[in-house]
Protein backbone atom coordinates (compact mmCIF):
# COMPACT_ATOMS: atom_id res chain seq x y z
CA UNK A 1 0.00 0.00 0.00
CA UNK A 2 1.75 3.10 -1.23
CA UNK A 3 -0.52 6.06 -0.66
CA UNK A 4 0.35 9.24 -2.51
CA UNK A 5 0.39 12.57 -0.74
CA UNK A 6 -2.87 13.77 -2.26
CA UNK A 7 -4.77 10.59 -1.31
CA UNK A 8 -3.40 10.62 2.21
CA UNK A 9 -4.47 14.25 2.59
CA UNK A 10 -7.96 13.28 1.37
CA UNK A 11 -8.11 10.40 3.85
CA UNK A 12 -7.13 12.75 6.67
CA UNK A 13 -9.76 15.30 5.64
CA UNK A 14 -12.40 12.56 5.30
CA UNK A 15 -11.64 11.12 8.73
CA UNK A 16 -11.58 14.55 10.40
CA UNK A 17 -14.85 15.46 8.67
CA UNK A 18 -13.37 18.38 6.79
CA UNK A 19 -14.76 17.52 3.32
CA UNK A 20 -17.67 19.42 1.81
CA UNK A 21 -20.62 17.51 0.32
CA UNK A 22 -19.35 17.17 -3.27
CA UNK A 23 -15.81 16.21 -2.32
CA UNK A 24 -17.13 13.68 0.16
CA UNK A 25 -19.44 12.12 -2.44
CA UNK A 26 -16.63 11.89 -5.03
CA UNK A 27 -14.31 10.35 -2.46
CA UNK A 28 -16.92 7.78 -1.36
CA UNK A 29 -17.63 6.81 -4.99
CA UNK A 30 -13.91 6.21 -5.49
CA UNK A 31 -13.82 4.32 -2.22
CA UNK A 32 -16.51 1.91 -3.40
CA UNK A 33 -14.42 0.92 -6.42
CA UNK A 34 -10.95 0.90 -4.87
CA UNK A 35 -10.12 -1.88 -2.33
CA UNK A 36 -6.63 -0.44 -1.77
CA UNK A 37 -8.16 2.87 -0.79
CA UNK A 38 -10.59 1.05 1.52
CA UNK A 39 -7.67 -0.68 3.20
CA UNK A 40 -5.74 2.58 3.55
CA UNK A 41 -8.75 4.34 4.98
CA UNK A 42 -9.42 1.55 7.48
CA UNK A 43 -5.84 1.49 8.66
CA UNK A 44 -5.70 5.28 9.02
CA UNK A 45 -9.01 5.26 10.89
CA UNK A 46 -7.65 2.67 13.36
CA UNK A 47 -4.40 4.58 13.82
CA UNK A 48 -6.26 7.85 14.43
CA UNK A 49 -8.58 6.12 16.87
CA UNK A 50 -5.70 4.51 18.76
CA UNK A 51 -3.45 7.55 18.96
CA UNK A 52 -6.30 9.93 19.80
CA UNK A 53 -7.59 7.69 22.59
CA UNK A 54 -5.74 9.23 25.50
CA UNK A 55 -8.13 7.61 27.98
CA UNK A 56 -6.92 4.14 26.97
CA UNK A 57 -3.36 5.34 27.14
CA UNK A 58 -3.85 6.70 30.65
CA UNK A 59 -5.57 3.49 31.69
CA UNK A 60 -2.66 1.47 30.32
CA UNK A 61 -0.27 3.53 32.44
CA UNK A 62 -2.41 2.94 35.53
CA UNK A 63 -2.56 -0.80 34.84
CA UNK A 64 1.20 -0.96 34.20
CA UNK A 65 1.82 0.62 37.61
CA UNK A 66 -0.58 -1.83 39.26
CA UNK A 67 1.13 -4.69 37.40
CA UNK A 68 4.49 -3.66 38.82
CA UNK A 69 3.08 -3.28 42.33
CA UNK A 70 1.27 -6.63 42.38
CA UNK A 71 4.09 -8.31 40.47
CA UNK A 72 6.50 -7.41 43.27
CA UNK A 73 3.97 -8.55 45.82
CA UNK A 74 3.57 -11.88 44.05
CA UNK A 75 7.32 -12.30 43.87
CA UNK A 76 7.86 -11.60 47.56
CA UNK A 77 4.98 -13.85 48.62
CA UNK A 78 6.30 -16.70 46.53
CA UNK A 79 9.97 -16.08 47.30
CA UNK A 80 10.03 -18.99 49.77
CA UNK A 81 9.07 -21.45 47.08
CA UNK A 82 11.44 -20.20 44.42
CA UNK A 83 14.68 -20.81 46.35
CA UNK A 84 13.43 -24.30 47.24
CA UNK A 85 12.91 -25.04 43.59
CA UNK A 86 16.25 -23.49 42.79
CA UNK A 87 17.91 -25.45 45.57
CA UNK A 88 16.43 -28.70 44.27
CA UNK A 89 17.39 -27.78 40.76
CA UNK A 90 20.95 -26.94 41.88
CA UNK A 91 21.25 -30.21 43.78
CA UNK A 92 20.13 -32.17 40.72
CA UNK A 93 22.56 -30.22 38.58
CA UNK A 94 25.48 -31.02 40.91
CA UNK A 95 24.52 -34.70 41.10
CA UNK A 96 24.57 -34.88 37.30
CA UNK A 97 27.93 -33.08 37.11
CA UNK A 98 29.43 -35.36 39.80
CA UNK A 99 28.14 -38.48 38.02
CA UNK A 100 29.61 -37.31 34.72
CA UNK A 101 32.95 -36.58 36.41
CA UNK A 102 33.10 -40.01 38.08
CA UNK A 103 32.24 -41.81 34.83
CA UNK A 104 34.77 -39.72 32.88
CA UNK A 105 37.48 -40.46 35.46
CA UNK A 106 36.76 -44.20 35.41
CA UNK A 107 36.81 -44.29 31.60
CA UNK A 108 40.01 -42.21 31.49
CA UNK A 109 41.75 -44.44 34.06
CA UNK A 110 40.60 -47.60 32.30
CA UNK A 111 41.84 -46.28 28.95
CA UNK A 112 45.14 -45.19 30.48
CA UNK A 113 45.72 -48.50 32.25
CA UNK A 114 44.71 -50.45 29.22
CA UNK A 115 47.00 -48.45 26.97
CA UNK A 116 49.94 -48.29 29.38
CA UNK A 117 51.71 -51.69 29.16
CA UNK A 118 52.90 -53.28 32.36
CA UNK A 119 56.69 -52.87 32.41
CA UNK A 120 57.27 -56.24 34.09
CA UNK A 121 55.23 -57.98 31.39
CA UNK A 122 57.20 -56.20 28.71
CA UNK A 123 60.42 -57.28 30.39
CA UNK A 124 59.23 -60.88 30.39
CA UNK A 125 58.23 -60.63 26.74
CA UNK A 126 61.52 -59.21 25.55
CA UNK A 127 64.12 -60.66 27.88
CA UNK A 128 66.14 -63.56 26.48
CA UNK A 129 69.04 -65.23 28.20
CA UNK A 130 72.19 -64.05 26.54
CA UNK A 131 73.62 -66.84 24.42
CA UNK A 132 77.40 -66.79 24.60
CA UNK A 133 77.91 -69.00 21.55
CA UNK A 134 76.16 -66.46 19.29
CA UNK A 135 78.43 -63.71 20.40
CA UNK A 136 81.50 -65.88 20.26
CA UNK A 137 80.85 -66.89 16.64
CA UNK A 138 80.74 -63.29 15.48
CA UNK A 139 83.46 -62.01 17.79
CA UNK A 140 87.08 -61.62 16.79
CA UNK A 141 88.22 -62.37 20.31
CA UNK A 142 91.02 -64.90 20.79
CA UNK A 143 89.30 -66.12 23.90
CA UNK A 144 88.61 -69.82 23.83
CA UNK A 145 85.76 -70.32 26.22
CA UNK A 146 85.65 -74.04 25.88
CA UNK A 147 89.01 -74.25 27.56
CA UNK A 148 87.68 -72.52 30.69
CA UNK A 149 85.53 -74.38 33.10
CA UNK A 150 83.80 -71.17 34.27
CA UNK A 151 82.44 -70.42 30.82
CA UNK A 152 81.00 -73.88 30.74
CA UNK A 153 79.09 -73.02 33.90
CA UNK A 154 77.48 -70.11 32.04
CA UNK A 155 76.60 -72.30 29.09
CA UNK A 156 75.02 -74.81 31.46
CA UNK A 157 73.06 -71.96 33.04
CA UNK A 158 74.83 -72.46 36.35
CA UNK A 159 74.92 -68.71 36.83
CA UNK A 160 75.77 -68.70 40.54
CA UNK A 161 78.70 -70.98 39.88
CA UNK A 162 79.78 -68.83 36.99
CA UNK A 163 79.69 -65.73 39.16
CA UNK A 164 81.73 -67.40 41.89
CA UNK A 165 84.37 -68.64 39.48
CA UNK A 166 84.74 -65.30 37.71
CA UNK A 167 84.90 -63.29 40.89
CA UNK A 168 88.70 -63.27 41.10
CA UNK A 169 90.23 -63.63 37.67
CA UNK A 170 93.91 -62.88 37.08
CA UNK A 171 94.97 -59.38 35.95
CA UNK A 172 96.88 -60.85 33.08
CA UNK A 173 93.78 -61.23 30.95
CA UNK A 174 93.52 -59.01 27.89
CA UNK A 175 91.12 -56.08 27.82
CA UNK A 176 89.00 -57.83 25.26
CA UNK A 177 88.72 -60.92 27.43
CA UNK A 178 87.96 -58.82 30.48
CA UNK A 179 85.09 -57.11 28.61
CA UNK A 180 83.76 -60.53 27.60
CA UNK A 181 83.82 -61.78 31.15
CA UNK A 182 82.35 -58.56 32.58
CA UNK A 183 79.48 -58.66 30.15
CA UNK A 184 78.76 -62.32 30.92
CA UNK A 185 78.85 -61.49 34.66
CA UNK A 186 76.28 -58.75 34.04
CA UNK A 187 74.10 -61.27 32.24
CA UNK A 188 74.52 -63.82 35.01
CA UNK A 189 73.61 -61.19 37.58
CA UNK A 190 70.41 -60.39 35.64
CA UNK A 191 69.61 -64.12 35.51
CA UNK A 192 69.98 -64.27 39.27
CA UNK A 193 67.83 -61.16 39.72
CA UNK A 194 70.70 -58.97 40.94
CA UNK A 195 69.72 -56.06 38.77
CA UNK A 196 71.58 -53.25 40.56
CA UNK A 197 74.91 -55.06 40.31
CA UNK A 198 74.19 -55.94 36.69
CA UNK A 199 73.33 -52.32 35.88
CA UNK A 200 76.65 -51.10 37.37
CA UNK A 201 78.66 -53.38 35.06
CA UNK A 202 76.55 -52.66 31.99
CA UNK A 203 76.80 -48.89 32.47
CA UNK A 204 80.57 -49.20 32.72
CA UNK A 205 80.70 -51.26 29.52
CA UNK A 206 78.40 -48.81 27.73
CA UNK A 207 80.61 -45.87 28.67
CA UNK A 208 83.87 -47.58 27.81
CA UNK A 209 84.98 -47.05 24.24
CA UNK A 210 86.04 -49.83 21.91
CA UNK A 211 83.95 -52.59 23.41
CA UNK A 212 81.90 -54.91 21.24
CA UNK A 213 79.21 -54.85 23.92
CA UNK A 214 78.06 -51.23 23.75
CA UNK A 215 74.74 -51.89 21.98
CA UNK A 216 74.05 -55.14 23.87
CA UNK A 217 74.79 -53.30 27.13
CA UNK A 218 72.35 -50.51 26.25
CA UNK A 219 69.67 -53.08 25.38
CA UNK A 220 70.05 -55.07 28.60
CA UNK A 221 70.25 -51.88 30.64
CA UNK A 222 66.89 -50.90 29.13
CA UNK A 223 65.43 -54.28 30.13
CA UNK A 224 66.92 -54.06 33.64
CA UNK A 225 65.39 -50.59 34.10
CA UNK A 226 62.09 -51.91 32.76
CA UNK A 227 62.18 -54.67 35.36
CA UNK A 228 62.73 -52.00 38.00
CA UNK A 229 59.66 -50.16 36.59
CA UNK A 230 61.81 -47.19 35.64
CA UNK A 231 60.18 -46.63 32.25
CA UNK A 232 61.77 -43.22 31.63
CA UNK A 233 65.34 -44.53 31.92
CA UNK A 234 64.34 -47.68 30.02
CA UNK A 235 63.24 -45.49 27.11
CA UNK A 236 66.50 -43.52 27.28
CA UNK A 237 68.54 -46.75 27.03
CA UNK A 238 66.35 -48.04 24.20
CA UNK A 239 66.95 -44.83 22.27
CA UNK A 240 70.65 -45.21 22.93
CA UNK A 241 70.41 -48.80 21.59
CA UNK A 242 68.91 -47.56 18.31
CA UNK A 243 71.51 -44.79 18.02
CA UNK A 244 74.51 -47.10 18.46
CA UNK A 245 73.66 -49.18 15.37
CA UNK A 246 70.71 -49.23 13.00
CA UNK A 247 70.87 -52.94 12.26
CA UNK A 248 70.83 -56.22 14.10
CA UNK A 249 68.39 -57.78 16.52
CA UNK A 250 69.00 -55.27 19.35
CA UNK A 251 68.10 -52.39 17.03
CA UNK A 252 64.86 -53.99 15.77
CA UNK A 253 63.81 -55.16 19.25
CA UNK A 254 64.56 -51.74 20.74
CA UNK A 255 62.44 -50.07 18.04
CA UNK A 256 59.53 -52.41 18.72
CA UNK A 257 59.73 -51.97 22.46
CA UNK A 258 59.95 -48.19 22.11
CA UNK A 259 56.73 -48.20 20.08
CA UNK A 260 55.01 -50.16 22.80
CA UNK A 261 56.22 -47.84 25.53
CA UNK A 262 55.44 -44.51 23.78
Amino acid sequence: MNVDEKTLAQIDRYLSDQMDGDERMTFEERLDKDPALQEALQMNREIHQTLADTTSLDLEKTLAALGNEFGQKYQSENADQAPQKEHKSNRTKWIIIATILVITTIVALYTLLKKQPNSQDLYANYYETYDWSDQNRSSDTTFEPNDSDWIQEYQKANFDEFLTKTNNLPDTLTNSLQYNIQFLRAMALMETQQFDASITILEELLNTSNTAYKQASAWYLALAKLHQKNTIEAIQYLERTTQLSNRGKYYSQAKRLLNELK
Partner: protein
Amino acid sequence: MTSEKNIIERIRLGEPAVFRKIYSSYFPSITKYILNNQGSLEDAKDVFQDAIMVIYEKSKDPSFTLNASIHTYLFAISKNLWLKNIRKNLHKKGSLPEELELIENDSFESEIQWREKEKLYRTKFSLLDDICKKIITLFLQKKTMVEIATELGLSSPAYAKKRKYKCKLKLLQSIKSDPSYKSLES
Protein backbone atom coordinates in the same frame (compact mmCIF):
# COMPACT_ATOMS: atom_id res chain seq x y z
CA MET B 1 -16.48 -8.83 43.94
CA THR B 2 -19.63 -7.57 45.61
CA SER B 3 -21.46 -6.26 42.60
CA GLU B 4 -20.64 -8.08 39.38
CA LYS B 5 -23.35 -6.11 37.60
CA ASN B 6 -21.80 -2.76 38.35
CA ILE B 7 -18.28 -3.80 37.70
CA ILE B 8 -18.47 -3.38 33.91
CA GLU B 9 -19.79 0.13 34.34
CA ARG B 10 -16.98 0.96 36.76
CA ILE B 11 -14.44 -0.46 34.31
CA ARG B 12 -15.90 1.59 31.49
CA LEU B 13 -15.59 4.72 33.64
CA GLY B 14 -11.98 3.81 34.44
CA GLU B 15 -12.37 3.93 38.24
CA PRO B 16 -8.90 3.30 39.69
CA ALA B 17 -10.29 1.43 42.74
CA VAL B 18 -11.94 -1.23 40.62
CA PHE B 19 -8.69 -2.02 38.80
CA ARG B 20 -6.80 -2.26 42.09
CA LYS B 21 -9.44 -4.68 43.36
CA ILE B 22 -9.18 -6.76 40.18
CA TYR B 23 -5.38 -6.96 40.49
CA SER B 24 -5.57 -7.82 44.15
CA SER B 25 -8.11 -10.61 43.60
CA TYR B 26 -7.12 -12.22 40.30
CA PHE B 27 -3.55 -11.33 39.34
CA PRO B 28 -1.95 -14.13 41.49
CA SER B 29 -3.99 -16.97 39.94
CA ILE B 30 -3.34 -15.83 36.38
CA THR B 31 0.33 -15.21 37.11
CA LYS B 32 0.60 -18.75 38.48
CA TYR B 33 -0.96 -20.09 35.31
CA ILE B 34 1.45 -18.15 33.04
CA LEU B 35 4.48 -19.20 35.10
CA ASN B 36 3.39 -22.83 34.90
CA ASN B 37 3.10 -22.55 31.13
CA GLN B 38 6.53 -21.38 29.99
CA GLY B 39 5.97 -17.73 30.91
CA SER B 40 7.70 -15.21 33.15
CA LEU B 41 6.39 -12.66 35.64
CA GLU B 42 6.81 -9.97 32.98
CA ASP B 43 4.69 -12.05 30.60
CA ALA B 44 2.03 -12.39 33.30
CA LYS B 45 1.96 -8.61 33.85
CA ASP B 46 1.54 -7.97 30.11
CA VAL B 47 -1.14 -10.63 29.63
CA PHE B 48 -3.16 -9.53 32.65
CA GLN B 49 -3.02 -5.89 31.57
CA ASP B 50 -4.09 -6.83 28.03
CA ALA B 51 -6.96 -8.92 29.39
CA ILE B 52 -8.26 -5.93 31.39
CA MET B 53 -7.87 -3.69 28.34
CA VAL B 54 -9.93 -6.18 26.32
CA ILE B 55 -12.71 -6.05 28.91
CA TYR B 56 -12.41 -2.27 29.03
CA GLU B 57 -12.87 -2.15 25.24
CA LYS B 58 -15.81 -4.52 25.48
CA SER B 59 -17.37 -2.39 28.24
CA LYS B 60 -17.86 0.40 25.67
CA ASP B 61 -20.48 -1.77 23.97
CA PRO B 62 -23.81 -0.86 25.66
CA SER B 63 -25.27 -4.29 24.89
CA PHE B 64 -22.53 -6.14 26.72
CA THR B 65 -23.45 -7.80 30.01
CA LEU B 66 -21.55 -10.27 32.17
CA ASN B 67 -22.84 -13.84 31.90
CA ALA B 68 -20.20 -15.20 34.27
CA SER B 69 -17.93 -13.83 36.99
CA ILE B 70 -15.29 -11.28 36.04
CA HIS B 71 -12.67 -13.83 37.09
CA THR B 72 -14.01 -16.34 34.53
CA TYR B 73 -13.77 -13.70 31.80
CA LEU B 74 -10.31 -12.58 32.84
CA PHE B 75 -9.03 -16.12 33.01
CA ALA B 76 -10.46 -17.09 29.62
CA ILE B 77 -9.13 -13.97 27.91
CA SER B 78 -5.70 -14.30 29.58
CA LYS B 79 -5.40 -17.93 28.51
CA ASN B 80 -6.29 -17.07 24.93
CA LEU B 81 -3.86 -14.16 24.85
CA TRP B 82 -1.10 -16.34 26.26
CA LEU B 83 -1.82 -19.14 23.82
CA LYS B 84 -1.65 -16.70 20.90
CA ASN B 85 1.65 -15.41 22.25
CA ILE B 86 3.08 -18.92 22.54
CA ARG B 87 1.92 -19.81 19.05
CA LYS B 88 3.52 -16.64 17.70
CA ASN B 89 6.83 -17.52 19.34
CA LEU B 90 6.55 -21.25 18.91
CA HIS B 91 9.87 -21.46 17.09
CA LYS B 92 11.55 -19.86 20.11
CA LYS B 93 9.72 -21.67 22.88
CA GLY B 94 9.46 -25.21 21.55
CA SER B 95 6.32 -27.29 21.57
CA LEU B 96 3.00 -26.14 22.92
CA PRO B 97 2.15 -27.45 26.38
CA GLU B 98 -0.49 -30.14 26.07
CA GLU B 99 -2.64 -28.71 28.81
CA LEU B 100 -2.86 -25.36 27.05
CA GLU B 101 -5.92 -25.36 24.89
CA LEU B 102 -7.55 -22.44 23.17
CA ILE B 103 -10.79 -21.48 24.83
CA GLU B 104 -13.22 -20.59 22.13
CA ASN B 105 -14.83 -17.33 23.06
CA ASP B 106 -15.92 -15.47 19.97
CA SER B 107 -17.49 -12.70 21.98
CA PHE B 108 -14.03 -11.34 22.83
CA GLU B 109 -12.17 -12.26 19.65
CA SER B 110 -12.62 -8.89 17.96
CA GLU B 111 -11.57 -7.05 21.14
CA ILE B 112 -8.50 -9.26 21.49
CA GLN B 113 -7.60 -8.57 17.89
CA TRP B 114 -8.22 -4.87 18.36
CA ARG B 115 -6.01 -4.88 21.46
CA GLU B 116 -3.19 -6.45 19.48
CA LYS B 117 -3.57 -3.89 16.71
CA GLU B 118 -3.68 -1.07 19.22
CA LYS B 119 -0.40 -2.24 20.75
CA LEU B 120 1.22 -2.56 17.33
CA TYR B 121 0.13 0.95 16.29
CA ARG B 122 1.32 2.48 19.56
CA THR B 123 4.65 0.64 19.37
CA LYS B 124 5.32 1.78 15.81
CA PHE B 125 4.28 5.32 16.67
CA SER B 126 6.70 5.36 19.61
CA LEU B 127 9.53 4.47 17.23
CA LEU B 128 9.03 7.60 15.10
CA ASP B 129 11.36 10.55 15.63
CA ASP B 130 10.21 13.32 17.99
CA ILE B 131 9.17 15.80 15.32
CA CYS B 132 6.98 13.17 13.60
CA LYS B 133 5.34 12.21 16.88
CA LYS B 134 4.59 15.87 17.62
CA ILE B 135 3.19 16.62 14.14
CA ILE B 136 0.86 13.59 14.19
CA THR B 137 -0.26 14.23 17.77
CA LEU B 138 -1.04 17.89 17.02
CA PHE B 139 -2.86 16.90 13.84
CA LEU B 140 -5.00 14.38 15.76
CA GLN B 141 -5.76 17.15 18.27
CA LYS B 142 -7.31 18.91 15.25
CA LYS B 143 -4.69 21.65 15.06
CA THR B 144 -4.39 23.40 11.71
CA MET B 145 -1.20 23.31 9.67
CA VAL B 146 -0.63 26.99 10.54
CA GLU B 147 -0.80 26.15 14.25
CA ILE B 148 1.43 23.09 13.85
CA ALA B 149 4.04 25.08 11.89
CA THR B 150 4.03 27.80 14.52
CA GLU B 151 4.16 25.45 17.48
CA LEU B 152 7.00 23.38 16.07
CA GLY B 153 8.88 26.33 14.54
CA LEU B 154 8.56 24.99 10.99
CA SER B 155 9.15 27.38 8.06
CA SER B 156 5.61 27.29 6.64
CA PRO B 157 2.23 25.49 6.84
CA ALA B 158 3.03 23.89 3.45
CA TYR B 159 6.25 22.48 4.87
CA ALA B 160 4.33 21.25 7.95
CA LYS B 161 1.87 19.51 5.60
CA LYS B 162 4.73 17.92 3.67
CA ARG B 163 6.34 16.72 6.91
CA LYS B 164 3.01 15.35 8.15
CA TYR B 165 2.67 13.32 4.93
CA LYS B 166 6.18 11.89 5.26
CA CYS B 167 5.66 11.05 8.93
CA LYS B 168 2.34 9.30 8.33
CA LEU B 169 3.74 7.39 5.38
CA LYS B 170 6.66 6.22 7.52
CA LEU B 171 4.23 5.08 10.23
CA LEU B 172 1.98 3.24 7.75
CA GLN B 173 4.92 1.51 6.11
CA SER B 174 6.44 0.38 9.42
CA ILE B 175 3.07 -1.07 10.50
CA LYS B 176 2.51 -2.83 7.18
CA SER B 177 5.99 -4.31 7.17
CA ASP B 178 5.60 -5.83 10.65
CA PRO B 179 5.09 -9.62 10.40
CA SER B 180 2.31 -9.60 12.99
CA TYR B 181 0.22 -7.13 10.96
CA LYS B 182 -0.67 -9.70 8.31
CA SER B 183 -1.92 -12.20 10.89
CA LEU B 184 -4.04 -9.47 12.49
CA GLU B 185 -5.60 -8.66 9.16
CA SER B 186 -6.41 -12.26 8.24
